[in-house]
């Protein structure tokens, strides 16, 4: 990206520093990821106040797919744009940390401490394990 002259301090110069193509790639992927996540949450039945299965599903699936993608990418010649779109955009948006965090608060305040604890454990340990699993599988595929 061409650097702007050091004398320009106007707000307009800020926008010249934004990588619009990258932003577009992430946003485009994000749209798909969010739509997919919404689809899953509608498909996985989660009655009010119950165990947040839908969020768990998207977070674990997304973690696995990200491990898989990054491992595959290291074998193929894919550019930054592809990473921005698929890894940050689609999968980054498909998974959700805010819903996860709030679910923990919800379960805890409802007195469901065992549910809250197991939700955290399965999400985090499962997520880490699945990133590694996806990574191993991705590296193993020709």
């Amino acid at each position, binding site marked *: 990206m061409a650097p702007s002259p050091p004398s320009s301090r106007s707000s307009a110069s800020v926008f010249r520093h934004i990588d619009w193509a990258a932003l577009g790639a992430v946003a485009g992927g994000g749209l798909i990821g969010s739509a997919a996540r919404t689809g899953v949450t509608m498909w996985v039945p989660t009655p009010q106040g119950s165990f947040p299965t839908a969020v768990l599903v998207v977070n674990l699936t997304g973690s696995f797919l990200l491990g898989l993608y990054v491992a595959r990418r290291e074998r193929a010649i894919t550019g930054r744009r592809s990473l921005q779109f698929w890894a940050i955009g689609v999968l980054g948006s498909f998974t959700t940390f805010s819903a996860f*965090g*709030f679910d923990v608060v919800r379960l805890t305040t409802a007195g469901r401490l065992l549910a809250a604890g197991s939700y955290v454990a399965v999400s985090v340990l499962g*997520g880490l394990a699945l990133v590694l699993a996806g990574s191993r599988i991705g590296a193993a595929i020709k």
Partner: protein
Amino acid sequence: MDFPTGTLIVNLFGALGLGLLVGAGTPQSTLTLTVAGFLSGFTTFSTWMIETIRLGPRSLRALLNLTLSLVGGVAAAAIGFTLTN
């Protein structure tokens, strides 16, 4: 790898935002669904996971990334909820 502060920041702010939104108890309008959906898309669980892995096995920074996000995220959601509830 640099410490993933960017992810931490978006996740903490997103969790705070969702806490504020749900705490306010606004009815399930299109606006609340949009904002909730935005916050869910804004935050990311998968990136947090892979960045933790990439900080290295048995590394203090990986543990830090894990605990800061987890404790910070839940705290942020709780604070947000308490503020508007």
